[in-house]
Every structure is written in structure tokens, then in C-alpha cells.
């Protein structure tokens, strides 16, 4: 019975085949065509990846750079998420807050976080603070926007019901409004996390002496292309890891919403 081969096995087989095709093509191109002059093969990259776990790149080993990048992301991202949720929900629930904040927010929102880099470097120099500020801007707009639409879309029937059943204002806020915009907020936080991860790279590429973005820049400055690729691989893995962590948290916090979909 051919049908017995499960969907999962087929998928895995195809995945293995396609990824090995990719690596074969990569090593073929880098061994037998003119591209080998510029681009390192997969084995070279792997070798460097393994050695850089123990041998330092610049001042720190790979772990050290990861620690710096992740610390920046986590600190700035947490601050941005909390303040974004507060501002967004305030805008979504109170018309006064909306009227006051929205025009300024809408004016600044279309400016990408990367475009803030020069100004922020002028303001804060090249320490840790400018990196936090850039990541903050990247994450804050996404979270605020989503919390705002989430709070706007709260089903007014539910609010009315809660009122009729005698819930006080605090109860309505914490037990009706906040839970019902949770899925939206999480969607925003998910996007914000990937923006934050990108923003930290950008800020490290423009002015830093450590971190994952710096690894790439260092590689390209010293024409050490394997190092660039090592940086890209590490950045990709960490980005995937961060996204997965967020998804797991979302599944825990918004379990009711996931089942419904």
C-alpha cells in the first residue's frame, strides 16, 4: 500500500533532498566556477563557524557577540512592548488620548527605524544607549499600532454585557478589553521582535565594536567572506529562535484564540 507512507515522511524526504541539492549546488559553484574567487564554500563556512565558538572574533567569541546583541534586543524590546501596549490601548479606548497622540504618532510612524540612526548617533554618541533607542523605535511603532487597532475593535456588545452585569470600570478593562485585544497585541509583538532583531543589526553595522551585526561588517571590511556568511547563519538561527519563542508564549497566553482558528 503506497498510501501508507505518511505525509510527514514525504515532507522530510523532500526537505532533505532539496536542502542537500542546495548545498551541493553551492559547493559546486564555489569549487568549479569563477565564483570561487569571491564566495567561500559551505565547508569553509562550517569550519569557521565551529572554530569561532572557541576562538574570539575581535574581542569576544561568538557567544560573547550573541550575548551583546541579545541583551540589547531584550532590554529595548521589553521597554518598547510595555510602553507600546500602554500607549496603544490608551489611544484605542479614550478619544482624548487618541486625539492628542495620534497626529504626532502618525507623523513619525512612516520614518523607518534605520533612518533614525544618524540623528540618534548625534544625540547619544556610540555607547549602548543609541542601540536601545533604535530598537525601541523599531518595536514601539508595531506594538502601538496593533494594540490600538485591537482596542478599537473590541466588541462593544461584550463591553455592554459586562456593564449590564455590574462590572466596574477596572473589571471591564482587565477582563474584557485587555483579553480581547491580546491576539492583536501578540501579532504586533511578533512583527516587532523581528523588526527589533533587524534594527539591532543595523545599529551594530553603523557604529559598534561587538555584536552580530558587527561580525558581518568586520567580515566585509577585512574581506573575510566566510566570516560574513558565519554572521548571516548565526543571525538567521537566532531570528528563527526568537520567533519560535514568541509563538510558544502566544500559544500559552492566547490558547483560547489559537484553538478557535
Amino acid at each position, binding site marked *: 500500500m503506497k498510501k501508507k507512507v505518511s505525509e510527514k515522511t*514525504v*515532507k522530510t524526504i*523532500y*526537505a532533505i*533532498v*532539496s*536542502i542537500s541539492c*542546495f548545498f551541493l549546488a553551492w559547493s559546486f559553484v564555489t569549487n568549479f566556477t569563477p565564483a570561487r574567487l*569571491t*564566495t567561500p564554500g559551505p565547508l569553509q563556512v562550517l569550519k569557521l563557524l565551529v572554530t569561532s565558538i572557541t576562538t574570539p572574533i575581535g574581542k569576544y567569541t561568538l557567544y560573547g557577540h550573541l550575548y551583546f546583541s541579545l541583551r540589547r534586543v531584550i532590554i529595548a524590546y521589553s521597554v518598547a512592548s510595555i510602553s507600546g501596549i500602554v500607549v496603544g490601548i490608551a489611544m484605542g479606548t479614550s*478619544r*482624548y488620548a*487618541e*486625539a*492628542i*497622540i*495620534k*497626529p*504626532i504618532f502618525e*507623523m*513619525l*510612524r*512612516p*520614518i*523607518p*527605524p*534605520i*533612518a*533614525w*540612526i*544618524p*540623528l540618534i*548617533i*548625534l*544625540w547619544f554618541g556610540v555607547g549602548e544607549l543609541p542601540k536601545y533607542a533604535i530598537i525601541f523605535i523599531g518595536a514601539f511603532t508595531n506594538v502601538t499600532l496593533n494594540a490600538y487597532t485591537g482596542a478599537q*475593535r473590541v466588541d462593544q456588545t461584550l463591553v455592554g454585557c459586562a456593564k449590564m452585569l455590574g462590572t466596574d470600570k477596572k473589571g471591564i478593562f482587565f477582563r474584557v478589553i485587555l483579553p480581547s485585544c491580546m491576539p492583536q497585541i501578540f501579532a504586533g509583538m511578533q512583527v516587532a521582535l*523581528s523588526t527589533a*532583531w*533587524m534594527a539591532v*543589526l*543595523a545599529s551594530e*553595522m*553603523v557604529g559598534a565594536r561587538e555584536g552580530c*551585526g558587527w561580525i*558581518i*561588517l568586520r*567580515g*566585509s571590511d577585512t574581506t573575510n*567572506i566566510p566570516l*560574513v*556568511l558565519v*554572521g*548571516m547563519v548565526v*543571525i*538567521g*538561527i537566532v*531570528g*528563527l529562535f526568537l*520567533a519560535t519563542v514568541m509563538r510558544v508564549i502566544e500559544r500559552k497566553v492566547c490558547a483560547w484564540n489559537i484553538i478557535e482558528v
Partner: protein
Amino acid sequence: MTELQKKRQKETRKFAAISVCSLAIFFLSWYIATGVLHLVPDYALPSPVQVLRAFIAKLTKRAPDGATLFQHIMASLKVALSGYFLGAVVGIPLGICMAWFRRVDLFVTPLFDMIRPVPTIAWIPLMILWFGIGLGAKAAIIFVSAFVPCVINSYAGIKQTKPVHLWVSQTFGATRRKMLFSVAIPTAMPLIFTGLRISLGTAWMTLCAAEMLAANKGLGYMIQMNRAIGRADMIIVGMLTIGAIGALFTVGLDKLEQAMVKGGRRK
């Protein structure tokens, strides 16, 4: 009814007034802090008047970074749009094929999932190595940044086609090709447009990054150069231009979507 309408109109007017006041207070406090009290030095945050003056000067003068504002805008637009169209033209059909043909899905999705988590910015040094620092490298970087959201969204759009609709068309004798073009793609249209909008945003942002790292013209280059010589007023002019063009793009795509997407998902 009219009473209620009148009341509502009054409310709207009141909140509009609050919005105007809020903006006015924002600019006024900026002006007072910088232009009157000089709380921060000019090289860090110039007053709004200075920014406006810089903007007007930049319209005609090449100083201090070698091109007028218009030339920078055109340089940026050329790069951004060429990379973006390439990304959309390759990405959308690929996403549709991935969702429609099972073998393509099984084969390409793992590769795509492997490349996707790498932020576009991380591609910049590699692209510069491969394509030099001309139009090619920047267009390639923007291609990557536009390509990924286009693929993801058209894939998701096709996948969300209701099987019932496909069955109906099958019952009425539609070929598989007809099913794709008359049922699945129209269903996916709103999401494809979401992808186009997201990728335009990322493309525009990536462009700034690419120009800040390697360019001799363009808005990203302009703000980076002005940081080096400490002209904050020019930086702010550049930032606001980038923001304004980004906002214009969004509005333009919204209009295009309204014209092209029948029905709608809008709540």
C-alpha cells in the same frame, strides 16, 4: 436624527481641534526648547524653523552633500522601485506556485524557510561583494527584502482558498488551470496586496540601510553624510522626506488595491 448628527458633528470637531492643538503644542515646545531657550545645542536638535529653512535651501542647492533633494529622491526611487518590482514579479508567482503545486511546495518551502529568517540587512555585505556598489547591489538587496513578504503572502492567500469553492468549480467542469485563475487567485488577491504593501515598506527601509552603507547619492546617503558633518537640520529634512515618501507609497497602494480587488475582506 438631525439632533444626533449635529451632536456627533460637534464631537468630531472638538476632537479635531484637540488634534490640531496637540500638533501645535508639539512644534511649539520643540521651537521653544531649541530656538528660544537653546536647551540643546544646534548640532543635536535644530529648531523647526531651521529645519524648514534647510528644506527650502535643499530644494535648489547641492551643498553640503553633493546633490539637491530632488536628485536624492530620484536616485532612491530608481533603486527602490527597480528592486521592488523585480521582487514582486518573481515573488508572487513563486508563492502562488508553491501553494498550488504540491511538489513545488515540498521542494521549495524548506529552502525558502532556510533563507527567510536572515534579515535583509545582513545580506548587504554579501550583495556588495557580488554586485559592486552600483545600482545592482542595492537593487539586489531590495529584491530580497521585497521578495520574501510577497512569497509568504501569496502563498498564504492561495492556501486559504475554501475547498468548497474549488469543489463547486470542479463540479461545473473547470480545469485545474481555470480553477487557479478564476477561484484561487482572486481569493488570494487581498493577501497578495497585503504582501505588496508590507514589502514596499521593508523595501523602502532596506534602501535607507543600503544607502547608508554604500552609495554616493540617495536619501540614506544624504542623512548619513550629514551626520558625519554634524548637520542635524539636513538629517531631519532627509528623515521627514523618507517618511513622507513611505506614507505616499502606502496611500498609492491602498488606492490601487481598491481599484483592483473585487469584493473585500475589509471589516
